[in-house]
């Protein structure tokens, strides 16, 4: 294998930033149910999607993430009642802007997974990592 | 020809510029050890002891890893150094161990921001980077035969401790010595170990004061400048040295003025933001003086010459 194909096929690195109350618990549930998931994502726990500054997602890309997933409680279910509504606006803009900043749109996703949706977590993360892997690692990008 | 007026515009200053070959013989680089020639690189030192002075001040006793350097390390009281935590950065601190102390170099650090928090996280045995000594110390030689009044507040004691220790070690060279030290509360008094000794010595006057009454405090109460006016040292043949928070310095200088101390007999050290420590990076300037090389020690007379931008 040449060095080039090696980088192209190396497993991608995905950061999943999730809220403590819904999606982290959902991911826990997926674990408890032994639902198999991809290896190459890392979960970062925050209290609420409202805590996540879109710039943190950009920071992750800048630091070399190949994909960033944000997941929280479904609108209406926020533990702090409003956090995900604010987050929704911010991440929608980020989602729309990223393709214009040189980050393919499949590399970013924001979604909602509740604590009871273990299966949904499995499919969300599997699909997302799959898409990112299809695009391959990002190398030498400005962001 | 262009009009140069009184403004000298030298043709080519290159003639005064040093070259690497000259530098190797050490011109302009007053530091010993293997880092000679590159004033930016820190010497690695190990923390041998940490003393918790007050809730937010720790003293660090460090030893250079290079034994030769440790043995050769010499500085003037009042000089400062850059103490650095790799990964966090460097910051300026007064060297406050006695110049005669050969086994370690002491810095006292008040927690303020990035670097100082980093320093406070360190343990004994950890590594730090040191660039020292820097700047101009107190003219202790010139002061011989004079009376000395040290006036200090809070962490300001760090800047004067080395000088005090030096003059006490050379007690016979000086006239009367008064130490006036104040802090907000007794808990904020640094160097308790020194204070005990100073207070017990008969050949000096040590006056310790706190700003406001405090449970359990039986000593003096009052702000430093007020206590100073009560003590009313005579200006004749006396040098006043003061260091502390800006507000204290301001009122102390006013008090000294009322006590009719001439500007030439009043010394203080300036705290300015500094980075390179060698008079290049620019930020510690007051007019054309750079605190890192021309200071931090200034007499009041010298300060009066500078633009009012302290």
């Amino acid at each position, binding site marked *: 294998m040449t060095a080039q194909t090696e980088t192209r096929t190396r497993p991608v690195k995905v950061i999943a930033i999730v809220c403590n109350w819904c999606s982290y618990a959902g991911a826990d549930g997926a674990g408890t149910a032994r639902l198999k998931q991809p290896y190459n994502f890392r979960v970062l726990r925050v209290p609420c999607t409202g805590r996540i500054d879109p710039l943190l997602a950009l920071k992750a890309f800048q630091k070399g993430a190949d994909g960033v997933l944000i997941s929280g409680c479904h609108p209406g279910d926020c533990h702090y009642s409003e956090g995900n509504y604010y987050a929704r606006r911010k991440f929608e803009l980020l989602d729309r802007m990223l393709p214009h900043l040189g980050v393919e749109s499949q590399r970013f996703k924001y979604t909602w997974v509740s604590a009871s949706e273990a299966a949904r977590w499995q499919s969300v993360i599997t699909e997302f990592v799959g898409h990112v892997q299809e695009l391959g690692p990002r190398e030498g990008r400005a962001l | 020809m262009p009009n140069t007026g009184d403004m000298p515009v030298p043709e080519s200053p290159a003639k005064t510029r040093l070259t690497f070959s000259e530098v190797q013989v050490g011109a302009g680089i007053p530091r010993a050890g293997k880092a000679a020639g590159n004033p930016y690189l820190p010497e690695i030192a190990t923390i041998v002891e940490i003393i918790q002075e007050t809730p937010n001040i720790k003293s660090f006793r460090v030893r250079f890893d290079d034994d030769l350097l440790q043995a050769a390390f010499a500085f003037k009281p009042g000089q400062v150094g850059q103490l650095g935590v790799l990964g966090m950065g460097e910051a300026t601190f007064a060297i406050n161990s006695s110049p005669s102390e050969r086994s370690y170099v002491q810095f006292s650090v008040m927690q303020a921001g990035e670097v100082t928090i980093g320093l406070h996280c*360190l343990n004994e045995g950890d590594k730090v980077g040191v660039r020292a000594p820097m700047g101009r110390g107190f003219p202790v030689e010139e002061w011989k035969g004079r009376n000395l009044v040290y006036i200090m507040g809070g962490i300001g004691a760090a800047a004067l401790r080395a000088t005090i220790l030096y003059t006490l070690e050379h007690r016979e060279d000086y006239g009367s010595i008064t130490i006036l030290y104040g802090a907000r509360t007794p808990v904020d008094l640094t160097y308790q170990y020194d204070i005990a000794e100073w207070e017990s010595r008969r050949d000096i006057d040590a006056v310790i004061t706190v700003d406001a009454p405090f449970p359990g405090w039986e000593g003096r109460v009052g702000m430093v400048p007020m206590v100073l006016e009560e003590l009313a040292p005579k200006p004749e043949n006396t040098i006043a040295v003061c260091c502390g928070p800006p507000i204290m310095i301001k009122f102390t200088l006013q008090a000294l003025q009322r006590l009719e101390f001439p500007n030439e007999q009043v010394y203080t050290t300036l705290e300015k933001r500094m980075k390179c420590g060698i008079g290049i990076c620019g930020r510690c300037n007051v007019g054309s003086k750079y605190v890192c090389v021309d200071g931090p020690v200034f007499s009041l007379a010298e300060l009066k010459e500078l633009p009012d931008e302290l």
Partner: protein
Amino acid sequence: MRIGVFVCHCGSNIAGTVDCHAIAERAAELKDVVYTEDVMYTCSEPGQAGIQRAIKEKGLTRVVVASCSPQMHEVTFRRCVEDAGLNPHLFEMANIREHCSWIHDDMPRATEKAYDIIKMAVAKVRTAEPLFPNEVDVNKDVLVIGGGVAGIQTALDLADAGLQVTIVERESTIGGTMARLDKTFPTIDCSACILTPRMVDAAHHQNIAIMAYSEVDRVQGYVGNFVVDIKRRAAMVDWTRCIGCELCVQKCPAHAPDRFNVGLAESKAIYIPFPQAVPKRAVIQTEYCRWFQQGKCRVCSRVCPADAIDYEQKDTYIQRNFGAIVVATGMDVFPWEEYYPQYGGGSIPDVISGLQYERMLNASGPTGGHVHRISNHEEPKNVVFIQCVGSRDESVGRPYCSSVCCMYTAKQAILTRNHCGPETNIFVFYIDIRATGKGYEEFIKRAQTEFNVNYVRGRVSKLYEEHGKVMVRGMDTLLGQQVEIPADLVVLATGTTSAEGAPQLAQALNISYDEFGFFKESHPKLRPVETNTAGVFLAGACQAPKDIPTSVAQASGTASKVLGLLSKDKLKTSPQIAVVDQSRCVSCWKCTDVCPFSAPEKQSQRDGSQKSHIIETVCQGCGICVATCPVNCISLKGFTTDSIIDQIEEALLA
């Protein structure tokens, strides 16, 4: 900084897929890690003891346990390290079970991932700071706003538990809606017989102060320390003298509509709503009073044996401190007249609301419990009830179910049968029946079978007068045909709406309300009686339409929440909250805009500027403000921006 890392095998739960020993060894290379160990069960007694021993012997200052989900054991380990003398927040958990071993089966790759997760936890614990819960003094007095059955219940529960309670009631008597009801479903027991003793209990309870004819004007402060301005409306009667003898009422020459009886009777300008009123004190309704309107009369002042009349009285304001506030302002009856022109919009006298009918059925009501037509006082032969008037009706902006109408209609139908005898035809037009409470469905069944009430499924499209009857035209959707009933009396099961002034009150209290004016609970399932403003609670129908059992149940639930809050002398606040670095705050007030709990406040600085300050007891630690502050000068303790960035970095480093 000396970090210890403990990697848990969790039997084979983790060790089956992750090489725990190997990663414990590798973790020893991480910066600041000075001790690592792999343990069979970290959460077990010996496992915890091992951690504590290591803390002491190796001088650990921070601890990472790599095991299961923090949701599972974070509390366990926090306590464990705390017992060993470490601050519990200098501990971090790496979830290598739920998020790793259980979802993978390839050992080398799972091990690699587990190692990354540990690296992230080490990075996070490295930036951790010791956190201490803050303590604030708590004022133990409670304010209950609204003296309906819910408010009374909460007040009594709290007062019985020894707290000082103040009830602020807008009307001149407590009792609320329930005081106007005749009987209550599903037991058909007399409403007054249940409520009146409770009202009296409240009045006589030494721990309860009732401030009737009063309103909350302004609320400042925060949980444990509210400062409330209460406005006492001028009653024109000195209540410290008034003895409620009603002499004035008898003699007063000026008539006024009787609000208590919903316009079914008349009252006087000077007014006591009903004989069992608590407090039983007179109020002059100045808009009807001759003295106030025409400048002559003063009859009441002359007849009052207690010399209580005071025409000069003004609104007064008093300020009180409370530790907690319970809002129990209930609901109002939907003003159907404005919305239903097809039902005559109030112009047909024999079309009345459910509440009016409730008064009519009441033996101490304006008709003495006699059911008759408004137009001619005859006993009705055909009584028609129409459900869902102002409920579940998008066209009038009330999409919600008022939750009590089905039941009270059934109750009223049954009572009609009791009052009017077997000859009367009783019809109920309904869309469907909501009878979810205990014994409710049976109650409806009884109405249909035992009391012979005709339930017609369908909407009534029009009411109009014809030949002295009210023609009810509608659709029987079960039979699929038009029906038309010549009714003598039509009772609209009017829905409920939020209490008048609810939005304003919500704004004063800084709590949220929905588009219909009902107050929002903090979380529909988890925090149903709390609001987003710490220390402010909800009880009864002000949160959503409710019947009495639910209102009372909730009221007691609320009381227990308040008791829980005030059981301590000091409030311990969660230390994982946001703090502002005021030296960097640029006073843009975005944080105050977005915080759902109004935790950030403007704090004046010595130099006259204002900087944001987050009230520790109010902040819930969501971090919305942190993500909004442009200069990032707010940090959420435990989840600082730097710690998140560090974790991202660790996760991405090869």
